[in-house]
């Protein structure tokens, strides 16, 4: 136990400033998130009927045509204003993993090489890989603990912003819960790899901003392609003209038309191919190419959304997180390879 405490104490002291400043920053962000969450929930506690009247929480649930009462308008303005600020704060949950990856990950090995202490450490430790793991472990655990705090706070804030349960909901995907921690792990390992490769602190930080950014943009694009391939068309009205329950939690990939032969056609594509020059739509989502077609009942297609249902949120959550962790694992392997081979100066 005392050996463990010694290890933690030394590791903390080796990156004292960064760990303290990052902790203060994360604590502030998490506290802000929790404050906004409780403030938003307090609005509902004060007047649930005002929020329900405006469709908040139930979303596109076809609220009463008269809208919320006049006396609700002031409360609703305050709610929207708070909601807007809270949504901006949610972006910190997206940025935190990358920030920690750069600030905590990049200097781990870079500073040892830059400062010349790698010669000391690598000659004392018989295995550079075990040195690396020992060196990274504390910082990684520390960072993941901080990100877990952000993940929980952002989960609560997201639910408060949307005013609904988000267990099967893609709202703020990647900015709450498990992905925040997983992406942080991936970013940290990438930052460490860049630092080991570059061997100087400031260049490593700058390079890791670019590398981490590019990697995660690439992963995001790849996920988008994957999602597109798995999304399904959903109409807004069924054949009988009954409204199909709108899945508020679904992940929307595209909007367009379902042609009579069942194919999906985006509006842009329809215009580009000259199939449509203008559109007419009835109140059950049927689209017609002209007023005459509307009169004649000649349907061009049905308005549809292409989406992944909200019930698949846990699956995609795990998938996104697993990819981030795998990328991090690969980066860690790369770091070990670099550390084993490179000169300490």
């Amino acid at each position, binding site marked *: 136990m005392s050996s463990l405490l010694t290890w933690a104490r030394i590791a903390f002291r080796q990156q004292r*400033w*960064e760990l303290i*400043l*990052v902790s203060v*920053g994360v604590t502030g962000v998490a506290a802000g998130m929790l404050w906004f969450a409780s403030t938003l929930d307090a609005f509902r506690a004060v007047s649930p009927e005002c929020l329900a009247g405006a469709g908040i929480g139930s979303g596109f649930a076809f609220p009463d045509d008269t809208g919320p009462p*006049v006396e609700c*308008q*002031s409360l609703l*303005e305050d709610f929207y204003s708070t909601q807007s600020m809270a949504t901006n704060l949610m972006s910190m949950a997206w940025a935190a993993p990358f920030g920690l990856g750069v*600030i905590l990950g990049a*200097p781990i090995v870079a*500073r040892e090489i830059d400062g010349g202490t790698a010669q000391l450490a690598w000659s004392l430790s018989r295995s550079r890989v075990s040195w690396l793991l020992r060196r990274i472990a504390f910082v990684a655990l520390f960072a993941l603990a901080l990100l877990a705090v952000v993940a929980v706070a952002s989960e609560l804030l997201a639910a408060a912003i949307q005013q609904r349960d988000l267990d099967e909901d893609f709202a703020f995907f990647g900015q709450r819960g498990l992905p925040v921690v997983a992406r942080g792990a991936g970013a940290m390992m990438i930052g460490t790899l860049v630092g080991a490769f570059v061997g*100087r*602190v*400031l*260049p490593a*930080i*700058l*390079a890791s901003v670019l590398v981490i950014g590019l990697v995660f943009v690439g992963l995001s694009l790849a996920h988008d392609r994957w999602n597109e391939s798995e999304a399904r068309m959903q109409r807004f009205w069924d054949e009988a003209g009954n409204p199909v329950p709108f899945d508020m939690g679904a992940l929307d990939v595209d909007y367009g038309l379902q042609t009579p032969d069942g194919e999906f056609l985006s509006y*842009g594509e329809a*215009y*580009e191919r000259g199939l449509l*020059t203008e559109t007419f739509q009835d109140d059950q989502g049927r689209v017609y190419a002209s007023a005459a077609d509307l009169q004649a009942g000649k349907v061009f297609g049905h308005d549809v959304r292409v989406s992944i249902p909200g019930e698949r949120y846990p699956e995609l959550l795990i998938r996104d997180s697993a990819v981030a962790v795998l990328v991090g694992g690969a980066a860690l392997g790369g770091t070990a390879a670099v550390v084993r081979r490179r000169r300490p100066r």
Partner: protein
Amino acid sequence: MTSARLAFRLQRASVGFAAVVCLGLTALAAWLTLSLPSALEECASPTALHDCGVVSLFGSPLGDPASLSSLGIGVAMYAVPLVLGVPVLATEIERRTAMIAWPLAGSRLRWLVWRAGSVLVIGLVLVGVMAVGAEALTRANHAQGDMGFASHGARGISMVLRSMLVLVMAMAIGAMVGRLLPSLLIGIVFAVGFSMAVDLLPPYGVESTELTAGDTAGGYPFTTGSGYRAPDGRPISEDETNAINQAAFAEYSPEFPPDSVLAYSVSYGIAGSRYIEVLAREAAVLSGATVVASGLAAIVVSRRRPE
């Protein structure tokens, strides 16, 4: 040239990073500026494929690159000065090269002017280029009239002033802390706080008035607040406004009530035509703050231990 060469070699990574970011964003802004007229023309055509309901940069096919450009410039105007400014003094102290440099120079202030001056010039040039690009982009987005306060703080002189203050303050922070990474983190906190606070400063004592249609036509105004007036022009509250308008709609339903019986909202602010006046005041305030920050850096350098 020797100073510039040495300044580059002493901070190769940060100067290189700053150059790539500033010049890259400027190139993007330039491409958008040149592409916008044809993109808007395309929106105006009967066969427009995209939803160009709002005839502006962001309602055009260039919406995503335009958003990226705005976001990038908004971050870079603070990130670049931090990356340039923090290492100037922090690395000299952390690596103990100040122990060589300060005795050689004789006067620490002379050394500071030499060391910081070249970085300031590099920063000024890079941010200046980016500011010009942002200015051109904003102008292209407001081709119909004057820009007024549009994108104030994120283009032209106002951007350069803010960036230079952050750069000098970053140097001062680096001098005080004496270690690179902690200085960078503190600098980030300062930059975030400054970016929020500086938006609260305008209009620097220039009195707000109720904005008229003429004020709006003279360029994007700076809005300081809003209010409501009854049909007779009397100032009223928001609740009174809602009550008057609901009653009017109920009375005239299903027709729309005439404007003469409706309460209306008004905006208060500074007309776009007075942009130069506000900009001049901002220049004085931020320049003064930059001088104070420079003085702070100089005091720290002259008094602190070199390690």
